[in-house]
Structure formats: C-alpha cells, structure tokens
C-alpha cells in the first residue's frame, strides 16, 4: 500500500477482506447446522449477532452438549472485545445519533483493523464502512450457502464436521499464540476446562476458562512486562480474522 491510499484502494482492500471472510462464513454455516441449529437460526445469528468468534462459540458449546444459554454467555464474553474496538474507533469516526447506531453493528475485528490504520477521519470512515459492509454482505451469503450445504450433507460425523469445529477454533486462536502470556493463558484454560468436563455440566468448562483470563490479567498486572506495547496487542493485523 502507498503512503496515502486513495479512497478507491481503501474500498478495494475492504472488499478483499470481505471475500476472505466468506470462507469462514461457509464453515460457520455448515458447523452451525451440524450442531443442530436450523438454517433459519444459523442465518439469524450471522445477521443479528455478526461477530464471528462469538457465533462459533455459541454453536460450539451447543455441539458439545451445553445449554443454549451457556453458549450465549460464552458468546457475549467473547463479544466484549468489540467494546474495546468501539472505544478506539469512537474518536476517529466521530459519528453520533442514528449513524453511530448503524455503525455499531459493523464494529468487528476486520472493520476496526482497516480503519484504525488510516491517517484522516475521512479515510478511516471509508475503510470502516467499506470493510464492514463487504464483510457483512459476504459473511451472510456464505453462512446461508454453508448452512444449506451442511443440511444437504446429512450426518455431520460422516464428513468429520465435528472435527472441523475444533480446527476452526484453533485457527481463530492461532495468530494470538505468538505471545508468551497468551500461551500460558491458553494452556491454563485447556487444563481447567478438561479437568471440569467429568464433573461439571456441559458449557460450564468453557465458561470457567474466563476465570483464567481474569486470573492471568490480575497476575501480570503485578509483574508488568516491559516489552509490552499496549496500543497494538489487542488488534488483529489486516487480513486476520477474530
């Protein structure tokens, strides 16, 4: 990208990111139907919830036998990330009233990453809207396609779709595992969740992992990492998904 990208190249980048997320949408649609949701419920999630990791979490908890509400709580804990994105975006986009209300639905990893890097408010708005609208459109079309394909396939186990769920979560997690603190958090979360599987109701082991995030967050507050760059580490880079 050049030093001062034109609006046209910003829009083009946004559309490219949208197309890339289409692949995730197909996976989500197929996995959601395999978890037992209807095509309509699957599409409602992509239209109304519209934040990928939360949607995967909701259907993942249900696929593992958890109650829909424990899935919803897990999804919302993952959705808190978008609140922090909004805090960063608010002064940059400077929208109010109905524009802000409409823009809120588009606050996700991709639209944030594609607008925070811009130098001017105008460019940030173009980046946010083009990426947000492109991802929203393609994510929902891909969800529908994936859900219909998943339904046509029949028993998901025959095609290994149950194994695809774990792989999808791992792929979402992977870019964050370069950081040492995140590695420790992941290992502790796995240990806690698996130790709770035999004794707790389905859905609880995953929710309990939220305590690990809280614990590690409090612990590292006491021993601050001097190499930490707080402005960058909660943002995905350009093409990465949430």
């Amino acid at each position, binding site marked *: 990208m050049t030093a001062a990208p034109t609006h046209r190249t910003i829009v083009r980048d946004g559309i490219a990111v949208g197309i890339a997320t289409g692949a995730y949408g197909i996976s989500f649609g197929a996995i959601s139907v395999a978890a037992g949701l209807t095509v309509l419920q699957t599409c409602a999630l992509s239209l109304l919830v519209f934040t990928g990791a939360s949607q995967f979490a909701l259907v993942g908890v249900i696929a*593992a036998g958890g109650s829909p509400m424990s899935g919803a709580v897990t999804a919302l804990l993952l959705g808190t990330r978008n609140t922090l994105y909004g805090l960063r975006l608010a002064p940059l986009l400077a929208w109010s009233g109905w524009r802000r209300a409409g823009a809120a639905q588009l606050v996700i990893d991709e639209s944030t990453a594609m607008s925070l890097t811009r130098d001017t408010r105008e460019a940030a708005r173009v980046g946010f809207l083009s990426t947000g609208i492109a991802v929203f459109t393609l994510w929902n079309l891909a969800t529908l396609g994936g859900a219909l394909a998943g339904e046509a396939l029949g028993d998901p186990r025959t095609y290994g779709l149950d194994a695809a769920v774990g792989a999808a*979560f791992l792929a979402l997690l992977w870019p964050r595992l370069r950081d040492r603190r995140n590695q420790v958090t992941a290992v502790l979360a796995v240990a806690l969740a698996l130790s709770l599987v035999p004794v707790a109701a389905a859905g609880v082991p995953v929710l309990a992992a939220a305590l690990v995030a809280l614990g590690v967050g409090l612990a590292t507050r006491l021993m601050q990492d001097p190499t930490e760059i707080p402005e960058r580490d909660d943002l995905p880079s350009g093409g990465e998904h949430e």
Partner: protein
Amino acid sequence: MWTAIIVTAVGAYLLKLAGLSIPGSVLEHPLVHRVADLMPVALLAALVAVQVFSTGSELTVDARTAGLAVAVLALLARAPFIVVVLAAALTAALLRLL
C-alpha cells in the same frame, strides 16, 4: 434456542454500541484491556479442548484428535482457514471409514 439467539444478538449489539458511546476514560484501565485481550485466548483454547477431547462428560481421544493434529500441521504450513478446517474434517472422516 431462539431465546439464546435473541439474547446473544441484543447483547452483542449493545457491547458494540457501548464502545462507540461510552467516554473512553471509563474503560481506559490497563487491567480492563489486559483481561479483554486474554478473554478470547482463554475461551477459544477451552473451546478447542472441550470440542476435541470430550464426549458428554467423558474425556475421549478419537478421530477428532487426529483431525486437530492435522489442523496444527496445516497452521504451521500457514494454510488458509478453509484449508485448515477441511483438512481436519477430511482426516476424521477418512479415519472413521477405516
């Protein structure tokens, strides 16, 4: 199921809107940021573990474990998301055919 979908939809939207509406200083505490950064890591890691290594309330090792191993290899080879997911699914499906 629909109740959970509506709760998630309303909650997810309000979380997004809150970020755009709340004055930045309220949540500008380093601890809030750190926990929010760690939250997806902890939850996704737990989801991987539960998804792959449990059936109901039992810990299990089966075709899904092989699928996850192949997914790790695909990720190490920097394969795109859809390839990672398909490779895991295909591995599990083929193992079950044996």
